[in-house]
């Protein structure tokens, strides 16, 4: 029960709830709240000392955000 595990669990839980029910219900707020739980998952991986998983997850999460942003831009252009 090290502090990384505790903080990561709290962040994962809080971030998931916040991404499910964002305050102003816009896609952008959902996307930013999703980052909180991404960092929580990163802290959980850190508490098990998985260096390779951390590197891969860091890269892939930036890529995921880029894809989501492209999707949002396409959607705004269509409307």
């Amino acid at each position, binding site marked *: 029960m090290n*502090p990384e595990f505790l903080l990561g669990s709290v*962040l994962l839980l*809080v971030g998931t709830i916040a991404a499910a029910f964002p*305050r102003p219900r816009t896609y*952008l707020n959902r996307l*930013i709240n999703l980052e909180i739980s991404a*960092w929580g998952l990163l802290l959980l991986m850190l508490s098990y000392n998985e260096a390779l998983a951390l*590197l891969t997850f860091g*890269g892939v999460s930036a890529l995921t955000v880029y894809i989501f942003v492209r999707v949002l831009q396409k959607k*705004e252009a269509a409307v």
Partner: protein
Amino acid sequence: MPSPAPLQEDWIAVNEVLVLAFAILVILGALLTIRESDPFRKLISLGIMIGGVMPFIVDRGLLDVAIAIALIAPLSTLFTLMVCGRGES
């Protein structure tokens, strides 16, 4: 859990303060990110949270991972700002 040796007592106390301070940073950043409604203010609060997470990665000794993540984290903020500016104007 056995009690730590008395020689290391001081070092452990200092470390506890550090862990507590950065944990406060992480929790404060996360709560602020959820509470704010403007996207720019949310991103600034996310910056607080990232600043709190980074010393935990360094504390494990994973310095290469810390370098990679410190360079990747602003990229995702930049990507998010691409859609922010367009929505504002």
